[in-house]
């Protein structure tokens, strides 16, 4: 890989001479984080909506726990998943440690509370507006869920982005459960840590700039989509 004392120059060189190594690191980063966010959404959207719509004993405890878990240190999440997937752990049989799947699991743990918690807030607000009308139309609470989730979709895109931001930026969890194995589990953030530890600071920063650019690009696309939808749907 090219190197220079200037991080921006290094980033530019990295992009211009996009080699196979860098490409696989970037695409693995995106794959792991996107899959983790998608799977977290699959569980988090219904969970958040259910918390918004149903009153049950212990509901407040669940809400507080989810809010607190939004601040879970990635290293702790990584350590828990490590102990779970380690050969000596309960799911050791599956042999998933040091694989991209393990990284997806760790990021899923980090992203789920964010998606569930923010979805609850969005759906609760919308439910306040819609409840009487939907009830009047004869909808049961369970059947309100998909309607509310779909009508909250613009806000939920932002929720997913928050989740994606957390997943793509964290390093502590994927480092522990992925092992930063070259060509297998090395992603943008673990590469940055590695280059920093080699003292190759321009390269580390260059990779950081690329990561930031990618995240910015994805956010910009989502933002534009959201703005268009807002204008169109009112």
């Amino acid at each position, binding site marked *: 890989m090219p190197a220079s004392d200037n991080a921006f120059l290094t980033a530019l060189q990295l992009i211009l001479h996009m080699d196979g190594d860098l490409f696989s690191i970037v695409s693995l980063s*995106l794959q792991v984080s*996107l*899959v983790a966010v998608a799977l977290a959404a699959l569980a988090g959207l219904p969970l958040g909506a259910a918390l918004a719509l149903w009153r049950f004993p212990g509901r407040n405890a669940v809400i507080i726990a989810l809010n607190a878990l939004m601040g879970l240190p990635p290293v702790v999440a990584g350590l828990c998943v490590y102990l779970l997937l380690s050969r000596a752990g309960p799911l050791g049989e599956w042999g998933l440690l*040091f694989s991209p799947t393990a990284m997806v699991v760790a990021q899923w743990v980090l992203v789920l509370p964010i998606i569930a918690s923010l979805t609850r807030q969005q759906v609760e607000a919308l439910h306040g507006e819609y409840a009487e009308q939907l009830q009047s139309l004869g909808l049961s609470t369970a059947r309100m869920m998909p309607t509310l989730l779909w009508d909250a979709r613009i806000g939920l895109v932002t929720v997913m982005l928050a989740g994606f931001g957390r997943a793509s930026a964290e390093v502590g969890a994927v480092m522990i459960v992925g*092992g930063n*194995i*070259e060509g297998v589990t090395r992603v943008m953030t673990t590469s940055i840590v590695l280059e920093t530890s*080699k*003292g190759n*600071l321009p390269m580390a920063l260059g990779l950081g700039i690329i990561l930031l650019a990618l995240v910015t690009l994805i956010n910009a696309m989502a933002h534009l989509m959201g703005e268009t939808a807002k204008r169109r749907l009112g």
Partner: protein
Amino acid sequence: MKKTAIVTSASLLILAWGGLALADNDYITLASTTSTENSGLFEAIIPQFTDKTDIDVRVVAVGTGQAFETARRGDADSLLVHDTAGEEQFVADGYATERQNVMYNDFVIVGPSDDPAGIEDSDSIDDAMQRIAESQSPFASRGDDSGTHRAELRLWESAGIEADGDWYRELGSGMGPTLNTAAGMDAYSFTDRATWVAFENPQDLTLLYEGDEALFNQYGSLLISEEQHPHLKHDLAEQWHEWLLSDEGQAAIADYEVDGQQLFFPNAD
């Protein structure tokens, strides 16, 4: 619109998932230390092993303490570390069946180029350590229970020094981060030569003391116990172990150079 959105996201998900589930060749997971990984040695020798055997070696580079723990839990097929006492204990505890010398490099002391403690002309490593302690010059220690950290602690002990006080800074970091920090605060530090030579952010740090026999840094390869962890890829791991000790593996290690300097010296029995 709803349908398109669902179909699009579903296909994206499938694509991404498919990318993650690439077909794997035979591989083993090797727990080793950051110092070997950071020096670039593995990138040089593993392809030679893979060419010959079609076995890929996936390196998980962590501190020596964590490497032992990883192997103890059965999460690595093979172990290559540099803490001879710890390795022998590991065998004695029944987690490994065999330990062999593979290679050595040496530790050096680096520090600010104006050398405030004047260790450059020390008679011995004991003398150098004493001069640092007496002058109360800042010293950046790994402090992470790694092989390098353990070696450093043994040297303070043999120099008869209680390494304690404001000047002695335990960082709890890997070798690279420790050097970054030492460079930032003009501190002395204890490092393996391989990491030092490959390190790209020395700033004002320079190599000040080397050559004492006590700075010898022995690497060993261990065969993990099949009895303890029957699920591991013992056959493949044994091929790797044997290759490291073979003439071919030893030559590959000797051939690895950075800036024209040989970093590791093969010494299999």
